[in-house]
């Protein structure tokens, strides 16, 4: 990796039947795309639990892709609609937590749409690159004041004890 450029780390949850195969197809057709998405296979986009997305963000992912069969084309008939509903709910919540919409994207790509998936990956990477790093864990770190304060308490108590002793 180059020194200066921010390379987003993105986790992709791809359904086994359409989008994972679209990624396979992008491979066999050698459709080049950005290497930032680390793909995790699930049986259906309906399996993608909002906690997967939250977990990934909390563990340092800068963005998340959820990809499944097109609405109406689900291998499990209609489960991608549930993915769609959950995604809506999740986005709504993430907005409340200050996470930009474009960091988490829902993509439909059929097994025949290697190009579409590759384009979506490039788009997501570009969007996240523009937004910058997320580094969520840094979010709940306190500044150096905290350790100093703890030491102060210890010191103060020790001093107080010496007096009483």
């Amino acid at each position, binding site marked *: 990796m180059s020194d200066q450029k921010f390379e987003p780390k993105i986790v992709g949850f791809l359904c086994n039947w359409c989008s994972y195969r679209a990624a396979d197809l992008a491979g066999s057709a050698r459709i*080049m795309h950005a290497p*930032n998405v680390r793909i995790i296979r699930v049986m259906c986009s309906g399996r993608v639990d909002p906690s997967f997305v939250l977990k990934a963000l909390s563990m340092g992912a800068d963005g998340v892709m959820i990809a499944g069969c097109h609405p109406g084309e689900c291998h499990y008939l209609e489960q991608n609609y549930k993915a769609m509903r959950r995604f809506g709910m999740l986005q709504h919540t993430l907005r409340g937590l200050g996470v930009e919409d474009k960091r988490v994207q829902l993509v439909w790509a059929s097994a025949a749409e290697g190009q579409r998936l590759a384009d979506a990956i490039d788009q997501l990477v570009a969007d996240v690159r523009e937004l910058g790093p997320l580094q969520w864990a840094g979010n709940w770190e306190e500044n150096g004041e905290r350790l100093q304060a703890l030491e102060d308490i210890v010191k103060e108590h020790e001093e107080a004890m010496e007096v009483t002793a």
Partner: protein
Amino acid sequence: MVADTPSDNRSKFLRDVIADTPEGERIVHCLQCGSCGGSCPNGAEMNYTPRAVIAMIAADRREEVLTSNTMWQCVSCYFCTSRCPQDIPITEIMYALKRMSIREGKARKTDAPALAKTFTDLVEKYGRSFEFGIASRYLLFNRPMSMLKSSGMGMSMFAKGRLALTPTRIRQVKQLRAIINKARELSQHD
């Protein structure tokens, strides 16, 4: 890491047309079916049919296309666009070609470019257009002979009260000009 983008080996002319046309990317999907050329009310009068023009754009035949009469024969009826099986915005491509042709000095002095210029000059002066001004000025400067032929008709129009000799002037001409000047300035930045 290097962004993986496909190398662009499309012709310069094609890239220019795509860049200058809203939704111009569709142009590369042309099947050369000819439904545009078949549909065009003026297709028979064109040097090249719209279909042929699209092929020529892809083949980088800039000079031939920009000096042709094809786009100037376009009457903006949108038949080609609404019938195109590939959703190519052909009418908008014609507009783009008109603009490129004027910009690159390839358009013939007379005909449509001159009409367009006459028209817009008036708009900039008054904020509105009026037929008499356009017709008289344009014909006077560009096609004086046909001025004579038209004059009979013009007279009857005048008699019916349908030819205003002076245009209506809008109140905020200055505002309009400011907008136009800014837009013109911004389009030169590209």
